[in-house]
């Protein structure tokens, strides 16, 4: 019995791994080389796509990417700073992520605020979001399927360094959170998703999850245990 469950779980895990690796979609078209300057003009990127942008220190750079239910998204950004000789001191860069309704999203891990010393040539920032849920109560600001906005900017810099050219690079990836985070419910429509492409598994995630294995395994176990119990007590013919 145990073996059956193990096999089932293994099959489920393998499937999850396959699906998980498939979410890092490969982009055929070229990655964007511009960034938006406001929520309204945020440039749409795909998951797994490296977008770049030339900008000035002090610009607010916006992108948006899609994430579906059951995905745990990670945003990574790298900023190539102006040459050290032109700068006048340390600068603090920050990565903010907002959902499709422009609600700030918490970073569960990663360095979203990084202070670069006067000598650093690059700054690397990252932010891992909570797992996207297919539905939440209206009072909650849980991450929901739809677009996510990325905002990259310098939050603290010597005034004299404003306006110097920088080069930014961002990438949003997502991993499947697995059956433990598989949930029910659905939204009527993903949040503000007009500009972004639907993730491979759809906005509500794949119908498949390890929970099928557990539930079917449990049913089989139940039936076998029932047959076992019956045979234990009955034995009428042996008398």
């Amino acid at each position: 019995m145990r073996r059956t469950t193990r096999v089932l779980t293994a099959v489920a895990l393998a499937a999850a791994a396959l699906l998980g690796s498939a979410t890092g979609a490969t982009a055929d078209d070229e990655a964007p080389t511009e960034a938006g300057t406001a929520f309204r003009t945020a440039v749409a990127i795909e998951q797994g796509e490296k977008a770049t942008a030339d900008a000035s220190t002090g610009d607010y750079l916006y992108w948006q990417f899609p994430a579906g239910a059951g995905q745990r998204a990670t945003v990574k950004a790298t900023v190539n700073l102006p040459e050290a000789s032109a700068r006048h001191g340390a600068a603090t860069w920050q990565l903010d992520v907002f959902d499709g309704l422009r609600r700030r999203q918490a970073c569960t891990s990663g360095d979203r605020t990084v202070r670069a010393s006067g000598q650093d040539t690059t700054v690397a920032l990252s932010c891992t979001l909570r797992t996207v849920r297919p539905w939440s109560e209206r009072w909650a600001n849980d991450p929901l399927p739809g677009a996510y906005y990325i905002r990259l900017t310098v939050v603290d810099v010597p005034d004299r360094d404003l306006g110097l050219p920088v080069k930014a690079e961002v990438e949003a990836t997502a991993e499947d959170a697995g059956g433990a985070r598989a949930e029910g419910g659905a939204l009527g429509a993903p949040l503000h998703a007009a500009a972004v492409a639907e993730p491979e598994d759809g906005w509500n995630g794949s119908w498949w999850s390890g929970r099928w294995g557990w539930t079917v395994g449990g049913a089989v176990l139940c039936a076998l245990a029932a047959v076992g119990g019956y045979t234990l007590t009955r034995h009428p013919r042996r008398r």
Partner: protein
Amino acid sequence: MIITKRLAVGALALLAALAGGVAPAGAADGPAKESPKVELVLDVSGSMRARDVDGQSRMAAAQQAFNEVIDAVPDNVRLGIRTLGANYAGDDKETGCRDSKQLYPVGKVDRTEAKTAVATLRPTGWTPIGYALRGADQDLGTDGGTRRIVLITDGEDSCGMPDPCDVARELAAKGTHLTVDTLGLTQDDKTREQLSCIAEATGGTYTTVRHTKELSGRIKQLVRRADTPVETPKPVKGADACSTAPEVGGGIWTDRATFGEHRWYRVTVKPGQELRASVSVGADRAVDRDYGVLVRAVGESGQELVRGSDAGSGRTDVMASGLRLPVWKAKEDDKEPRTVCLEVSHSFSAPASVKRDPGLPLELAVDVVKAPDNPSDLAAFGLGRGWALLAVLGVTGLLVGLLWGWLARWRFAVWREN
């Protein structure tokens, strides 16, 4: 005979079709009416003579960059050029501060003509930035399409009044979607402060230019940016109470909210629909360190239904938040639309020296979508998971089996007795 006639008719029809096909293409030669408009405003004041951009004069660098930009202008962008300080070399401030002229009208670019016009420029006079911005705003007109000014200068306004930063904010508040991007050709503190302030006031960007290549690259980027299609917000004026609030539907709306002011809007939502609202309040001037924004959905009876808020501190462009409000059916055939009021407030504050009017730019994005019913189960398809589930199912199965077996045994015993 008939065949010839048919052929002739066919040929005529073909010609007509061709003509018909060609005519609209000919008419669409110029850019469409809604196409984006960009005006480059170039400082031609005396200080542009300084030779500090890659060994050439600032003027020469700007001219070279303009030539490259003119070559690279996308076809549907209407481009214009305005100069400031190009004509009056005298000492009379009054005259010098009104020295701003349109060098090339906003429209489809004739590349040779535009380049010739730029080539004639020589560094001459004063730096009336505020005056030039007003002129550029008029040049761009108000006939729709995005409007962008790219200001290239090497010094702060030498005229004082009007303050270019106030002018920029005033132009941005007119509701004609104007963005001013500024490029500074010096690293001078005062110039940078002023140009940053102009950019901040209109949601534009500020760039320090040290090399010719940076200059042309940045201007090209800004022109391309103007060409990016974007939804234009509609103006709305929020009221100070729910009862008098204007009705807003789906779409993006802009308004202004001064410090301490609450803005109310009304949205009609039918049962079975979900209201989604996002709000951004921009910090377009110097503000105090801490700030926040709050958006509340309030029912007709004055009860708060749901809210969204955010707070922060430090350097920022906007403070944003949002909310979603599904409206469920109270009974089976509930079709009565509900009025939901949206109240937007912010806690930005500013030092006393900062101008209060116009208020901070407010952007409201409203969307009404079909909402599903309240989900019956939050587990995926109601499925279970984990060892506890297996234990419960296994033990239950075993107990049922035992009971059933015991029943069978008992029935067998009863049957044998009889």
